[in-house]
């Protein structure tokens, strides 16, 4: 598959209540690589095997949650085209100048009907993954095994209203396709209660669940290469008394192996492995709301109350 248009999730900026506690967690426990701090006091991280300068940015604030979630697009011409297409679709866009975020080019920002800020950008300095480019070993002792050490920032699940309108924007303007969905409860209004969208060959790059309050974060997810690594992540979380929400278990939806847990400010994150590789021509997989239990936690078949209620 030729990957053009939107390439992948690029960065998430998360609000934290206590930067010292947050950096200890994201740096030492999750084991991300710190790549910089800016004049505003924001702290930048990447996962060890990511090439670009940053994929997670922390900002100290008086409430937790997600400032914005961004996708990297192929090149500057693609960025210009998406900006024009978003405007033609009827959305307002804003340009954030290059350099506002460290080592990051100009960003095009717009607000989704669900109240979330989404950004697109084409340029971010490639700092590499710490391995030589010529004849590299498969991993290194410095960062690949330090803490949980996820491979990449993988996707984001956001909660808010109007996810049907979000879906149209992602599919009709940004070229995503629908991989899986959950229908609304029977006996109520028709429609989708949750959607999983992909811009490439992953089970999802972004997902939405319908919720009354706009702009809510459910989780930012970090990719691990195996179920074994997921169990290892669970052990490291417990050693460090990281509050776990759900798992280790397997989602029915996307089939991914997962742990949901919380950072010290209460923002949920996920460590995620497995799943499957869909193609854009596939018919989406459907779930009834009444089967959200196994969709969320396949072995336990349990609709954990926190899934629909605990958000930042």
């Amino acid at each position: 598959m030729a990957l053009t248009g939107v390439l992948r999730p690029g960065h998430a900026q998360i609000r934290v209540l206590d930067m010292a506690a947050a950096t200890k967690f994201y740096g030492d426990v999750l084991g991300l690589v710190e790549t910089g701090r800016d004049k505003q006091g924001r702290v930048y991280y990447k996962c060890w095997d990511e090439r670009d300068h940053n994929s997670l940015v922390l900002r100290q604030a008086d409430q937790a949650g997600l400032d914005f979630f961004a996708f990297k697009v192929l090149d500057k011409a693609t960025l210009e085209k998406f900006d024009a297409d978003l405007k033609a679709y009827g959305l307002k866009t804003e340009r954030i100048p290059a350099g506002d975020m460290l080592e990051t080019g100009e960003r095009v920002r717009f607000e989704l009907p669900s109240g979330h800020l989404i950004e697109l950008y084409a340029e971010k300095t490639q700092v590499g993954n710490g391995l030589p480019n010529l004849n590299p070993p498969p991993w290194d002792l410095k960062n690949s095994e330090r803490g949980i050490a996820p491979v990449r920032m993988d996707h984001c699940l956001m909660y808010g209203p109007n996810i049907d309108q979000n879906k149209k924007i992602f599919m009709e303007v940004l070229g995503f396709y629908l991989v899986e969905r959950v229908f609304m409860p029977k006996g109520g209004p028709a429609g989708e209660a949750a959607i999983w969208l992909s811009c490439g060959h992953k089970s999802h790059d972004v997902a939405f669940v319908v919720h009354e309050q706009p702009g809510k974060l459910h989780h930012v997810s970090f990719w691990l290469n195996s179920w074994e690594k997921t169990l290892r992540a669970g052990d490291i979380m417990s050693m460090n008394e990281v509050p776990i929400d759900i798992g280790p278990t397997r989602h029915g939806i996307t089939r991914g192996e997962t742990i949901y847990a919380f950072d010290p400010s209460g923002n949920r994150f996920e460590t995620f492995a497995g799943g499957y590789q869909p193609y854009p021509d596939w018919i989406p997989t459907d779930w009834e709301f009444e089967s959200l239990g196994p969709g969320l936690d396949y072995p336990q078949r349990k609709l954990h109350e926190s899934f629909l209620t605990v958000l930042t």
Partner: protein
Amino acid sequence: MYQVMLEETGESFQCNEAESALKALARSGKRGIPVGCRGGGCGVCKVKVVSGEYSQTVMSRAHVSKEDEANREVLACCIYPRSNLLLRVIGKLQHVVRR
């Protein structure tokens, strides 16, 4: 070790100075306060401290205003007892899918 009591149920559990009231509740195996993020971010564990002294860590302003704080309406995952405590649960889990 202090005693923390929930007003509605009369349920009580032990809590030391170094653990949050919510963590102690979970450790005791008892129920009564919704357990969410345990980091002061999600707001589901909100309680009113009816009586007793406590220290606190930072809580999201989205869920605890300055007035709430002055009124001893705080997040159970962010308070640490300095005496026996009596708590009234005020946090509620919100329904999200319109039915």
